[in-house]
């Protein structure tokens, strides 16, 4: 490309760059006569200059697009403020920052309910430990008597990460709060020596890789319970859960338990209660059966105790896991589990403290 052409482009560039800073309608620069004139020159040029010249014009245009964009951002940019000040300058008193009306405020119904549930267990002498949201294979399976490759692992549709731990196993999004059992037993093992039981409840988020519908979500809250001591019977488990549920629903309930299978409890039970909403007469909450299956539980498997260095000959224990969403949905007649994570204020503000709902 000869010097004339280079100069020609440079001249147009200087002119247009200056214009961007001057005029209001900055976009018009991109459609200007000068640019179009440069493009119009291309067909007239000698074959060997066409490509080079065309590219130079394109580069110029792209540069101008960036400049227009930048100047627009600059124009729209809000002025800096004194971020350490409590309010803006020159503001009238009644238009300064203020809290929203208290009656609009709300605690999320799941967590409000969880707080009440924890309060009951605390009153029964259970300590609280919150569960993790990323854990390892050992805590999800190994420490809970799920051998490597055991088919029972398939009952938990577990999310796994691409990242791996030092044993090259993927990290796991816990599918149950039981992942915390081994840690709890190890943390509190000293209590056993002092003649006190280990009594802990563990709330937390759990994750299941399953299809989402009105009753199932891939993310939900569970409350795990662990109790280990001397002379602990299956009846102790049933009585503890019954006592909690009667306090929670503020009514007398009947319970029944049927056999189940979990690798980490033996015996394993599925725990059902008489419907607290219809007194066993049948209603939509209990699907007109009078009974509601509410959680899985059982006596802690000796291998789980051994994994935490507790001698199963001397100590026995029980554990349970209950879904919080279910309890809350039943209590307030909530139609769709997905509402909990919807962030919809028409849902959340119905649970405002001022309304006395919670």
């Amino acid at each position, binding site marked *: 490309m000869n010097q004339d052409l280079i100069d020609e482009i440079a001249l147009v560039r200087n002119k247009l760059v200056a214009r961007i800073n001057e005029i209001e309608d900055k976009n018009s620069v991109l459609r200007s006569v000068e640019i179009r004139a440069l493009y119009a020159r291309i067909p007239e040029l000698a074959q060997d200059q066409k490509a080079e010249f065309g590219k130079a014009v394109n580069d110029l245009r792209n540069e101008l697009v960036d400049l227009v964009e930048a100047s627009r*951002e600059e124009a*729209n940019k*809000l002025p*800096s*403020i*004194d*971020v*350490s*000040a*409590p*309010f*803006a*300058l020159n503001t009238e008193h009644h*238009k300064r*920052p203020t*809290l*929203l009306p208290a009656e609009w*405020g*709300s*605690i*999320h119904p799941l*967590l409000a309910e969880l707080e009440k549930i924890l309060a009951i267990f605390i009153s029964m002498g*259970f*300590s*609280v430990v*919150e569960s*993790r*949201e*990323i854990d390892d294979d050992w805590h999800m399976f190994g420490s809970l008597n799920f051998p490597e490759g055991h*088919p029972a692992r*398939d009952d938990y549709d577990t*999310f*796994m*990460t691409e990242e791996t731990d030092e044993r090259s196993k993927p*990290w796991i999004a816990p599918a149950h709060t039981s992942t915390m059992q081994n840690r709890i037993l190890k943390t509190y093992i000293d*209590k056993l020596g002092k*003649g006190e039981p280990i009594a802990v409840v563990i709330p937390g988020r759990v994750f299941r890789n399953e299809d989402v519908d009105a009753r199932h979500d*891939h*993310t939900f809250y569970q409350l795990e319970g662990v109790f280990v*001591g001397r002379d602990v*019977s*299956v*009846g102790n488990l*049933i*009585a503890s859960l019954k006592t909690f549920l009667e306090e929670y629903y503020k009514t007398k309930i009947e319970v029944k338990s*049927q*056999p*189940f*299978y979990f690798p980490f409890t033996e*015996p394993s039970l*599925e725990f059902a209660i008489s419907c607290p909403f219809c007194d066993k007469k049948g209603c939509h909450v209990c699907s007109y059966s009078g009974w509601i299956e509410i959680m899985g539980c059982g*006596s802690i498997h*000796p291998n789980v105790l051994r994994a935490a260095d507790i001698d199963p000959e001397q100590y*026995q224990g029980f554990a349970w896991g209950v879904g919080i969403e279910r309890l809350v949905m039943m209590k307030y007649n909530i139609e769709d589990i997905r509402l909990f*994570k919807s*962030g919809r*204020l*028409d849902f*959340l*503000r119905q649970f405002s403290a001022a309304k006395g709902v919670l």
Partner: protein
Amino acid sequence: MQAVAGVEELPVNNDDLIAKIGAQIGAIEEITYLKPIYEAAVIVKIIDCKPLEGSDHLHVCLLDDKKTVKQVKRQDDNLIQVVCGAPNVAAGLTVVWLPPGSVVPSSVGKDPFILSERPIMGIVSNGMIASGKELAINDDHSGIVVLNDDVEIGSYLVDYLNLDDTVIDIENKMFTHRPDLFGQLGVAREISGIYGQKFSSPSWYTPEVSLDSRGDFELKVDNRLKDKGCPRFMAVAIGNIKVAPSPLWLQSYLSRTGIRPINNIVDITNYVMMVTGQPMHAYDLSKITQAKKVNITIRHPKANEELSLLDLSLVKLNKGDIVIATDDRAIGLGGIMGGKNSEVDQNTTAILLECANFDMYTIRRSSFVNGIFSEAVTRFTKGQSPRQCPAVLSYAVHLIKEICPDSVLISKVADEGAPLDDLQDVSVSLDLLSKYLGLELPEPEIIKLLTNVEIKAKVESGLLSVTPPFWRTDIAAAEDIIEEVARLRGFDTLPIELPSRKVTPANVPALLELKNRIRHILAAGGANELLTYSFIDEQLMNQSGQDIGRSFKIANALSPDLRYYRTGLVPGLLRKVHANHKAGFARLALFEIGKTHFNDQTDSEGMPYESERFALIVSAETKVAKDFYQGPAYYQARYYLDYLLRSINIDPIDLIFNNLVAESKWGELTKLYQKGRSAIVSIGSHQLGVIGEFSAAIQRSLKLPEFCAGLEIDLDELLSLVNHAGASYKQLSRYPKVVQDLTISVDQDKTYQEIRQELTDKLNNNLAVDMNANFSLIDIYQAEGSEIKNWTFRLEVDSYERTLTDAEVNRLVSELSK
């Protein structure tokens, strides 16, 4: 149900049994009462069958039902006229007739088809003669069902096929450790056990059984996986087979249990599996060998080996799979499915019958890798007992002989496997048993509970020891016996009593207490707590300027929307702003408390570090914002921060605001927030978090209004401040308080925190020891065009010892104003 009753005599009523199964065996998914479905069907004889004039396939039939059915239009000779289109209809046949008014069984529960008397081409037809498909017994719709001649005419189908039965579908999740409950024999034994009655397995179900066979077909089995994968492989060749549809009772049985009848040989293998839980397979012998001998090898696949299965899928075999093979090719995927190349069909005259045991871990992996799930997989992955193979094989041979009377064993029975260990006795002390049960059961009751389900048990000097029966693979530890006793007796019969324990205080983590306090404080401040998912999508990560490379990635995400562990809470909250404004909530404050993760941060135990966060967004629709607020949204977010801190006894006066820069702990948020309107907030050495308005880009992409700001706080940092925060109470003075305003005029670039610091320093220098003072900002004014800002503070001073004079307060004010 009848399969159960078939092997034992339980004088029980249906409803009671169903309730007991639900309570003591497993959750019931579905109950189907068969009698109402079939009770109208009558067995009749076709007396006369003539083509219907004008039709190319319809026949007019006259049926004899021995006058069993009352409400039906009869001919003078009491016969019933029915038009039938089946190609195999003919006079003299014994068939099943569905009278008018009855419902076609296959349509029950779907779209019930009620039969009537109706004219077909002018001829009245009363109901219909049924095909196997219409009776929901098999898939055969090529013609009507034809029964043997010896069936009583005029009798009900219900009586002939024993259809006064109930199908109880039990959820199998609780049977994961009970291979025996995947066969009806096991379920029957269990039911007997929970009824407290003694069960006796049929005489053929015993581990010591041998098949007498002297055939000259040479069957050789080389089980190369006997130590890992295939603990036992039994097979026998059978000749003189005649493949045909199974007898109706067998077809009806299989369809009741949800299995499609195919032919007598396949049906027998399936029937035996349904009874015992042991899968079997039959290969067409002529398809695997032309000679009078065959070598069967159990091995892993060769490189690039492929196999077409019975379901027509082509499997590229993986190295962990188990292959059943002849010398030249694979004929089955062990424990999962047979090969297409050796399928039994109507031309089959000889079979190789396999009854093998496979390792549950191997089968599970193989099934997963190949994506094939079959009835056999369901059963083998529960760990079937290799000890039942001989009994099951000989029972199958017996049934084949019954249904194909000419069949004959033509080879010796092959039985290649690892030697079986002796069944080990398992014991538990009565003391431990009593602890678990919460009561002392009398010894005879314990023994009876166990022997009812054929578990040999004895008590010697306080020790209960049992010999696991040959079909159980799950009794290995003391707790397994305890479970057995508790379950058979019924958990609900155990004494229910709260544990007795030492009274000690329960601990609640300080962090949880702080989180609950925050919830209540913010809710009282008109804010709404919401929860979003822990997983977010790439787009939101990008929009909010977060580094995907630092986020944990879910390998098996449900959808791309849920692929990344969130690294901050604010982006998820921002996504909820626009929709709520649109829904009519013009002013809002949303907050969330939750965990965030970075894939490059670990905690002291080497686990991924979990950062506990609190985030808040304030926002107002533009029009409404003008009515309520003057000045940037930043200050509204700031106000909530001050409110929160004050409420947990932290004085917001101590907050320090620094520019959000890339090099800081919060550096990756520089793209999320707007420069000049955001800051890192700290108190002392604790970097609490970030507050600010959002970048133009995210405002645009998430449709945020102009009046929108937020903050995110590290709760572990906040907690360490709370732990140090003392009581905020100041004793009251008995002397009056003096209030004075003062205005400081300074250069516009001076920030509030600089001015405040100077003011505090001056106050400390000029305050007498008995004096108490605090100041608060009440106004900031800047005249248009001026470069000076006027800061007006309100000063409150008092003394614990005396009434202050105007002169000394004025002196103080003038010192401060300098």
